[in-house]
Every structure is written in structure tokens, then in C-alpha cells.
């Protein structure tokens, strides 16, 4: 069985990063109408049962769902029960953690430092890249670790919207579940070992990074 999890659990992390950072910055630094609603919507997948989120995604991405139908018409591609649905489930489930961490991290950067950077001649882009992002980096990396962990362990939403199709939509989590159901314990343990190795490497690298920045 080909296990595409490694590639596909990184993908939502990377794809979510820019959107989550932008959203986190917006929530931390700007007031706008409907902000409370956006905050609630972003946090919703954290509170809802993953299977319920998966059902919502299925209704959205399925052939008869608004998004699934539009993509099928425009690009001739299915979303539900493809690797794209895996990515969508992982993104939706992990995004809130990244947004919340990024928001807290941005809030902790003193606006005074950004203001002083401006008086020293820096434009907004330079302030963001040289002051805001580096000072928020620890919180962002911590959020990335959480989001990665959430994506790696995602099961409920994935199984509903993408199923567990060998070689196509199987993830580490659904793969282990599938092997155990079939009584193939050896294969399940191989995936378990892979899970431990990936999780260990990710957390260890994150800790190293955070320690280095703390020093």
C-alpha cells in the first residue's frame, strides 16, 4: 500500500501558513466589522466533533456540493474522496491552531517597536519582515508544531470526506485504522513506527529552533 501521508500532511501545513499568518495578523492588529464572527468561525473546527466537520466538508466538496460541483465543472476534477479532500480536511482542522498561535504571537510584539522602525525610515513591508515576523517567530513555530500534530493525527474529518482508499487517500491515521481492521498488525506497527519517527523529528526540530531563539 502506498502511503501518501508524509507529503500530504506537510502540504496543508505549508498551504495554510500564509493564510493563517495573514488572518492571525489581521485579528491581532486590525479592528473590522464582523471580527467577532470571523474569530468564532476560525475557532469552530476546534470545538466541533471532527466527524461533524467532515460531514460539512463532504456536503461542500461532494459532486453535489457547491464547491465540488463548481470545481468539477471548471476543471473536470473531483474533490471528495481524492487527496485534495485529505488536504482540505487537514487544513480546516489544523488552521485554527495556527491562526490562534499566530494571533497571540503578533499581539505580543510591541507596536512601539514597529512605530520606532517606521520613524527610522522603514516602510510597512520592511517593518513586517524585519521586526514583526522575527519577534513573533517563536509563537508562529509553536503554532506550526501544533497544527502539524493536528494534521498528522487527523482522522474523523478525513475518513468522512476522503475515505480510506489505498494509494489515494490513505493517511497514517486512517492507514493504521485500516490495517487493524483487516488484522494486519505488522503493517499497522510499521505505520505506527513511521508516525512516531515523524512526530519525534518534527517536535525535536521545533524545540531546537525555539531553544536557539530563546538563547
Amino acid at each position, binding site marked *: 500500500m502506498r502511503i501518501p501521508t508524509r507529503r500530504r500532511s506537510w502540504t496543508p501545513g505549508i498551504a495554510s501558513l500564509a493564510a493563517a499568518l495573514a488572518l492571525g495578523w489581521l485579528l491581532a492588529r486590525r479592528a473590522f466589522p464582523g471580527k467577532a464572527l470571523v474569530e468564532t468561525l476560525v475557532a469552530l473546527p476546534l470545538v466541533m466533533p471532527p466527524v461533524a466537520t467532515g460531514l460539512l466538508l463532504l456536503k461542500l466538496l461532494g459532486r453535489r456540493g457547491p464547491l465540488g460541483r463548481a470545481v468539477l465543472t471548471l476543471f473536470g476534477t473531483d474533490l471528495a474522496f481524492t487527496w485534495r479532500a485529505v488536504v482540505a480536511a487537514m487544513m480546516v482542522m489544523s488552521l485554527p491552531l495556527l491562526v490562534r498561535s499566530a494571533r497571540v504571537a503578533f499581539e505580543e510584539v510591541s507596536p*512601539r*517597536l514597529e*512605530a*520606532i522602525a*517606521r*520613524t*527610522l*525610515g522603514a516602510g510597512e513591508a520592511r517593518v513586517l519582515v*524585519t521586526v514583526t515576523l522575527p519577534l513573533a517567530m517563536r509563537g508562529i513555530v509553536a503554532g506550526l508544531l501544533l497544527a502539524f500534530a493536528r494534521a498528522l493525527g487527523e482522522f474523523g474529518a478525513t475518513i468522512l470526506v476522503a475515505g480510506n482508499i489505498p494509494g489515494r487517500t490513505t493517511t497514517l491515521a486512517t492507514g493504521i485504522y485500516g490495517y487493524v481492521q483487516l488484522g494486519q498488525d505488522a503493517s499497522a506497527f510499521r505505520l505506527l513506527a513511521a508516525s512516531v519517527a515523524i512526530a519525534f523529528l518534527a517536535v525535536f526540530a521545533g524545540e531546537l529552533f525555539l531553544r536557539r531563539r530563546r538563547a
Partner: protein
Amino acid sequence: MSLTLEAVRLALEPFVLSVDAAAGTGVTALFGASGAGKTSLLEVVAGLRRPEEGRVVLNGRVLDDAGRGLHVPPRLRRVGYVPQDDTLFPHLSVAANLAYARGASARDRARAVDVLELGPLLPRRPASLSGGERRRVALARALLASPEILLLDEPLTGLDAPLKARVLAHLRRVREEFAIPTLYVSHAPEEVLALADDVLVLERGAVARRGAPADVFELAAEPAYRLRSV
């Protein structure tokens, strides 16, 4: 006159900042009690606060004109602002903090490092510096932004007496070497007497008095105490 504040008004809690004044080419002290509006006025000049009325003009260049909705953003104002709070970038070394301000020539950079005796501090991070060292680095960084005016907000506050004397000596050297018009916020008459050419006394957001430091202040008889010999 290098800086002109023409009927500048800004609502603050619990009063309205209302200033009509000009500052010359030397050091002009903004003197007043805490909460008199001194820092807010500096922030108006730095562009960090926008006046609701009036004009701010620096060397003939209009920086704010509330009537016309004109507001030059801080990055284009060419002001060297040194706030009271610690605003060195904590993730950058002293050298990188100084390099953040662009526009100064290598010669000016070397001169600022020399005048403020920052050479040995260059590789260090702000967290490892003393209070006095931080003030000197912040001052140098502001100087390196090639400012047309320096805005110094109580640069000696929070320093003990020996450090205060050292930083004061450095401020004097900066004044002699760089000759940049300066707005100097203080609530200590001795600092104003030591550094300023002119004083604006602020009370509840308005200029209550103005004049040379020697005309504004007189020596008060104060009881002084010291430890008895044993």
C-alpha cells in the same frame, strides 16, 4: 525656526493638547509635570499621532496640515525619535540596531559610534546592556536616521546619578558634534539648565511659559541629607 507648531490641537484624556509654538536650531526643552502632554507632543512631531487641528512644519516642509488632511507618515519625516521606553530591537545586535537606520554615511556611522563610545557594544544584544548603554545606542540609532530634528523623551529618567552624569556628558557631545535641532522632554530643571537653549513649559497640554532656562528656573533652597560619619 526649524520646527513650527501652528495651533496644533489633539484631544487627550483629560485635557486637550493645544500648542502654538516654535523651536529653534538648538536644544528646546519641553518641561512639565508627568501627564502634561510632553510625550504626546513629541509623538505628534514624530508622526505617531495625528493632530486634529493645526499644522506641523519642519524646516519649511509641512508634515501635518489637519485642514487639508495632510499627514506625512513617520518613515518620511526624517525625525530621530528616542522614546522613554526601551525600543531597541531585542532580536538584533547593537550593530544591527544601528544599521536599521538607513541614510547615514559610513563616516557619520563611525562618528556616532565614536562620540557615544559604542565600539565595544556593537556585537552585543540589547538584553545584555545596562540602562545607560541602551539609551546611548537608541540615541545613536536615531542620529543615524539622518534626522532634521531629534526628539528625546526623558533620556535620563530611571538612571542612577553616576550613569545620569555619563549620559548627560554624551548628550552634550552629541549636541556639539552633530548640531541637530532637538526637542528635549524633561521634568528635571537641572537637565534643562545643563542642556537647553530654550524652554517651553507645558501645563495640561498648553504652553504656560517660554524662555531661556535661566529665566524660567531659579535655585530652590532644599534640605539635603547625607549619612553621618561613624
